[in-house]
Each structure stands twice: as structure tokens, then as C-alpha cells.
């Protein structure tokens, strides 16, 4: 891994990338909401020290909210279908946090096993993830509970951290990352000496909510599918789905046709297991007919099922579901309290 010192600030770095004609996606305000979006001027991007995280995660750049997968037309008995193509342009996603970068290494497993979802995988191949270590956290963050840290490099092509002088140090983690550095080489200087470990990141790590014991959580979940606590802890849940939509690792979707006259598109749209229709059979039978079963599915999928199948926890502790839940259902708190109960 090569390490570089950035000779300028964040804005100049983005400016240089834009000048080289790069397609840059960075956190910027859309109204009052901080979201990832394509920027045309470096000044549009919000400085990494000014935010904890974006409202929606970066997942939509691999797995869009809605996308066509097939195009078709029909006129009487004459039906034609075509592939819809994911955009193939290269993207630099800049200013994301370690939890969002790590999320892709988790969802890669689902889109890349057995049947390959080229819509996700094409975008994934064409995107470089340029992460900035966290400089502040809030009470919703819990990445240390799921094996991450405010300065984790997992999933990043480049990770930027500050040294105590406030200079950005770039840790290059892949060939893709190296290419980005090479494209604006004039801004960087290679660092040979050992880089100091910045107390800021360790401080944040220590300030974070005390680590969850994911092994113990899983053991409890293994035994407590039928626990009455599910009703108790989820009784407030409205089934609004915000948690799933904002989550960087949630990946469920629907497939829906849209038509206008004799032309149409078949689309993949985000969906959520928190909605009652998600599992409703045409017969009227619904295996998860009440919200407590749907909430249980969410927690089980994150902390048990995904690790049973892919050996990974389906959560990066980004805290979005905690911040956004209209009834303050806090997944960290729920799993810590559930596992305290000796009902096993």
C-alpha cells in the first residue's frame, strides 16, 4: 500500500479531478438534505469535517432506487425485448465514510454469488470509492460493534486521514485508487516515513457506544425465533421502511413493469421487508402477517441469516436507521436489550 500526502485542501483536490474530466460524486446539499450527487464545481461539495454522514447512503450508485433491466414493445403478437444497460461511465465517489465503503464489500456477496447481477457489478467495477475517515460521531454511530472503526479502510480504494497538522494523508488500497492518485499526481507527494497514529480517531473509537457482542447476539437469535420479546420490542414499529431505504446494506427489491401504449420497461425498485405486502401470497396467506414478525426478520437477517449464509454481519453500524426511525427504534439498543434477557 502506498501512502501520499495531499499538498492542497479537499476542494482543490475535487477541483483537480473535475478539471481532468472526472465524474465526481460527493456529499452536497439538495435543499437542506445532505446527499451524494454529481458535482460540477468543487465548491458544491461539503467539506468532510462539516458532516457526520449523508442522509441516504452511497448504495444507490451501485443499486439505484429504480432502474430498468429490460425494455420491451408489443404490437399484437409481435413482442420485442432488449436489455437495458447500466451506465458504464467511470465514477469517483468521494467523501464517503468508512461504514458506507465497507457496506459494498458486504452486499457484493449477494449480487455476485451464483447468478451475477451485472447491473450492480458493472457499476461496482466502474466506481472508485474515496473515503474520508470520520472526524466526529453522534450517539447513533456504532461501527465498532461490527468490526469497523472511524478510520477503517475496508472497501475503500483510497482512505484519507488527517495528521495532527491537519494535512490529508491518502492510503491507497487498490489499483483503482492508485489510478486516481496518478491522474492528479501533481497534488500528491509520496510519504516514506511511518505515519503517526492520530489520537482523534482513537478518541472517536473510544467515545462510541460500547461494542455489541455480535457472537452472543447471534447465539441468542439462534435460539429465540419464537421469543415473546419480539412483540414487546417491536410494538412501536410503524412499518414505514425508512430504516431499510436508508441502510447501506439493505438490498431487497421488487420487479415491476411500466408501460405507455405499446412500449414498456421492466424495473428493479427498492423494496423493504418492513412492508406488509412484501411476503403476501396471492392466496391471502402471509407468513409475516404482523409487524413484530417483520421486525424480527430485519434483525435476524442483519445479525443471523446473512452471517449463516455469507459469514458477514449485514450492518456497518452507520446509525442511519437509528437517526431516521420516526419512533426511535434503535437497532443497537434492541439487540443489546434482547440479549440481556435470559429467555434462552
Amino acid at each position, binding site marked *: 500500500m502506498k501512502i501520499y500526502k495531499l499538498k492542497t485542501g479537499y476542494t482543490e483536490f475535487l477541483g483537480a479531478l473535475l478539471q481532468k474530466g472526472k465524474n465526481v460524486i460527493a456529499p452536497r446539499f439538495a435543499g437542506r438534505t445532505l446527499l451524494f450527487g454529481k458535482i460540477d464545481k468543487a465548491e458544491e461539495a461539503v467539506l468532510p469535517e462539516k458532516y457526520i454522514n449523508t442522509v441516504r447512503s452511497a448504495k444507490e450508485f451501485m443499486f439505484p432506487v429504480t432502474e430498468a433491466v429490460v425494455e420491451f414493445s408489443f404490437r399484437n403478437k409481435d413482442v420485442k425485448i432488449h436489455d437495458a444497460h447500466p451506465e458504464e461511465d467511470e465514477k469517483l465517489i468521494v467523501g464517503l465514510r468508512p461504514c458506507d465503503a465497507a457496506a459494498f464489500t458486504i452486499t457484493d456477496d*449477494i449480487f455476485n454469488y451464483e447468478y451475477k447481477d451485472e447491473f450492480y457489478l458493472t457499476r461496482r467495477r466502474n466506481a472508485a470509492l474515496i473515503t474520508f475517515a470520520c472526524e466526529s460521531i453522534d450517539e447513533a454511530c456504532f461501527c465498532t460493534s461490527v468490526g469497523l472503526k472511524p478510520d477503517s479502510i475496508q472497501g475503500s480504494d483510497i482512505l484519507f486521514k488527517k495528521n495532527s497538522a491537519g494535512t490529508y494523508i491518502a492510503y491507497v488500497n487498490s489499483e483503482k485508487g492508485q489510478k486516481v492518485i496518478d491522474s492528479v499526481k501533481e497534488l500528491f507527494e509520496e510519504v516514506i516515513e511511518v505515519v503517526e497514529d492520530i489520537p482523534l480517531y482513537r478518541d472517536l473509537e473510544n467515545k462510541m457506544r460500547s461494542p455489541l457482542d455480535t457472537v452472543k447476539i447471534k447465539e441468542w437469535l439462534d435460539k429465540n425465533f419464537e421469543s415473546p420479546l419480539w412483540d414487546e420490542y417491536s410494538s412501536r414499529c410503524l412499518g414505514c421502511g425508512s430504516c431499510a431505504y436508508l441502510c447501506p446494506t439493505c*438490498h431487497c427489491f421488487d420487479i415491476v413493469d411500466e408501460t405507455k401504449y405499446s412500449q414498456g420497461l421492466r424495473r428493479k425498485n427498492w423494496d423493504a421487508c418492513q412492508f406488509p405486502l412484501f411476503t403476501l401470497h396471492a392466496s391471502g396467506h402471509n*407468513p409475516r402477517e404482523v409487524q413484530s414478525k417483520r421486525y424480527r426478520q430485519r434483525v435476524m437477517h442483519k445479525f443471523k441469516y446473512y452471517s449463516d449464509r455469507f459469514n458477514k454481519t449485514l450492518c456497518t453500524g452507520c446509525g442511519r436507521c437509528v437517526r431516521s426511525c420516526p419512533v426511535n427504534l434503535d437497532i443497537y439498543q434492541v439487540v443489546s436489550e434482547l440479549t440481556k434477557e435470559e429467555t434462552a
Partner: protein
Amino acid sequence: MNNIYKPYLAKIDEVRQETPDTKTFRLSFTDPEEAEKFSFKAGQFGEYSSFGDGESTFCIASSPTRKGYIECSFKVVGKVTNALKNKDVGDVIGFRGPYGNSFPIEDMRGKNLIFVGGGIGLAPLRSLIWNCLDLRQEFGRITILYGARSVSDLCYKDELKEWEERSDVDFVKTVDPGGETSDWDGKIGFVPTVLKELAPEPENTVAITCGPPIMIKFVLANLSELGFKPEQVVTTLENRMKCGLGKCGRCNVGKTYVCIDGPVFTARELEALPVDF
């Protein structure tokens, strides 16, 4: 690009009205190259589309031993099935598949088979039944128990007659009490009850069952009472599906994806799943 969501185009060559609300399509792929390459196993399913309306999951109801076409039978219940209902011979629909695992036909060789079907649940069994009958000498005794709510709800009526007349098949048909007609010559009673009366020997036998969830539940219980071990009982699970590819998350039961790990499970495998289907 290899687009896993893109269906083949398939032409409807034949339409049969099985019951007042169930139809069978015989389909052939419009692209001869695709038709040539295509193969499947009994128990697998597909995503069938009416373009503009969406996709629906049905098993492949014909036998892999009968080449050049596939058949599906569907009950009209909602949006897509209502759209398909109005299609006719010559119309073109979409098909993705074959998906899922299949019946363990290799393990059934040399054994007695008892098929227990209810309603439209006969569709996947029919694929396996014809598969086995086309290789008749490879299996022991073959018993088929089939029931529906009423006489008019019985699917594949011509084939039922054929099985009834064959000397190498024991065929029993039944309808729910109240569903009989004056000329009904089968049994009257629920499938699980008739199964118990029939009392098949578990020795060297595999039971394969498919039907509405409530029927399957009682059939499994009764087979167990008759001495069948959970390894000897095979069934198919139904969960709402969209992708059929283990991606969309809809058919999850625990870590299992019914669409790629199933839809065929032994009763032993079902015991290990959370009750979430």
C-alpha cells in the same frame, strides 16, 4: 452483458382450460437456438411474464422427458395471472428459468413412489409423474393420490383417466365433502384423511406431496404417523417470489432462499427451518 433478468420469448402453442379458474399453456421458445439449448429437471420453476403486467412464478408442469416444449398451469388469482388468462394461441409471453433445485429423482430409483397432490399442487407433481412413467421400469410401485375441492376443480382430467386405466399405476382420486357430483366415482374426503385410509407402506418408499399449505401440513403429519421418516418425504415450498435468483430477498426463510435452495425440500430439511413460510 449477461442479463439475468431478461426472459426468453415463448409462443403459446396450445391453451387448455383445466378448471373454471385454471389454465394450461403449452409453450415453445421463439428462438430455435434457445429452444435447442434449454433443459430442465422436474420440480424446477420459471418466471412467466405478460409484458406490461409483470412476472409470476409457476412450476414447469411438463416432463423433462417430453422435449420441444414446456407447459405451465396457473390459477387465476391476481394481476399477472389475470393478464395471462386472456392470452391465446399464437401470443408471445416471457419465460425466465429454469430455476430452483429439483426432485431427487436419482434417489427415487428402485423405490416405490407415492404422490400426494391437492388442487393446482398437482402441477409440479405431474412433471415428476410423467418423468417417472416415461422411465417406468426404473421404479417400484407407483401410487398417485389426488384431490381437489370439487369435481370441477380437478386438473388434467384426461390424464387422470389415463392413470386410472394404467395397470402399472395405483390411482386414487378424491374430492372434499360436498364437492362431489351425482356421477362421481372417486372418494369423498380430504386428501390427508384419504391418505391415512390408504395407509401406504413406508418400506422402501418415497412420498412426494404438493398442494395448499394446510394440506401439506396434515399430509406430513399423517405420513409421519404411518411410519414415514422425514427423509422419505419430499415436498415443495411456496413463498412469494420476484427474482427467482436469490437476490431480491423476498422468499427468505431464515438463511434459505426458497428460489434457489428450494422449492423442493425433504420434511427433514423443513424441520430445520424457522416457521416463516
